[in-house]
């Protein structure tokens, strides 16, 4: 069933010359692969992580010291997140440099931009969760950057109503990181792939 669905998402036939690997380097597909690895490893991490300021760090310590493969799983999740961001940025750059964002692919360009922004936000919300010094202060600095934006103070209040690393903020980052943003990424990715089919390919081909 999954195989049939994947086949349905893409065109039945493609121009042979567009299959040249060096046109795309499969960067979009690789970014989505990283997302799938993130989802799989993240789902396993959920079994141990506790999203409260007092329990978050000890739950990571427990995962790393007492759970078989726990330390490795966390490393894999972190590494996949770095790959996800780098690949999605490179994919965006490839789309610009091959002129593939031009009409009639403008809707897919917009969904791609939204996916890029969501990927950055997903990375940012995940940064706080281990609740170590790196997590706390990197997130705090990110919030200072948000403050420099117009309406930044209002946005900051929505994200961190009680201060970075406090109970409500950690809970909001957690829900955004594990549910809201990945859900949006999945929905937009489906639309993105569907539009590739509607546009009859991944590249200008006429």
């Amino acid at each position, binding site marked *: 069933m999954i195989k049939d669905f*994947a*086949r349905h998402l*893409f*065109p*039945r*036939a*493609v*121009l*042979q*010359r567009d*299959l*040249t*690997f060096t*046109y795309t380097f*499969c960067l979009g*597909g690789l970014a989505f*692969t990283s997302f799938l*690895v993130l989802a799989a490893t993240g789902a396993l991490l959920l079994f141990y992580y506790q999203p409260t*300021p007092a329990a978050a*760090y000890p739950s990571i*310590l427990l995962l790393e010291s007492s759970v078989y493969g726990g*330390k490795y799983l966390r*490393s*894999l999740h972190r*590494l996949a997140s770095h*790959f996800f961001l780098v690949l999605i940025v490179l994919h965006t*750059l490839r789309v*610009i*440099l*091959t*002129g593939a*964002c031009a*009409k009639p*692919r*403008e809707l897919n*360009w*917009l969904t791609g*931009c939204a996916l890029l922004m969501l990927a*950055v936000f997903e990375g*940012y919300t995940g940064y706080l969760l*281990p*609740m*170590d*010094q*790196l*997590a*706390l*202060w*990197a*997130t*705090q*600095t990110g919030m200072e*950057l948000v403050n*420099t*934006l*117009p309406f930044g103070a209002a946005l900051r209040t929505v994200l961190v109503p009680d201060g970075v*690393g406090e109970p409500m903020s950690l809970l909001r980052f957690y829900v955004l990181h594990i549910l809201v943003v990945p859900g949006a990424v999945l929905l937009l990715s489906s639309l993105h792939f569907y539009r590739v089919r509607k546009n009859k390919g991944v*590249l*200008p*081909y006429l």
Partner: protein
Amino acid sequence: MKRGYVKSSPHFFRPVKVSMLLLVAALIGLAWLIPAPLQEQADIARVPNPVKSAWFLLWIQELVSYSKYLIYLVLALTPLFLFLPWLPIGTPAAKATWFPKEQRLVTVTALALAAAVLALTLVALFFRGPNWQLVAPF
């Protein structure tokens, strides 16, 4: 099958599948070699110096360290980025090609911005020490 076209299965799906498997294998291998860092427990009373944001936001931190008003440069460029397909920047490329000459301005601008973001990130990552002073990386 029309001339020049091939069936997606297997011609399109095979390279996609192979590249996906190679990436997963690379991730699985590299995760053994690069463990995720874990510092001491968060403490709001102990401020590290320097304080750096997440690596993917460092270029903005570096930029606003010169002047906080430079954030408006980023904000001004965002709509240009979003509405790229609607800008009067030449005719779309006729076929798949890198750096189509119909959009040379976009190509040069995109490469220049990517280089600037990369340079700002590297400076912030390796050349910023206590009090955000420039330091030698090693």
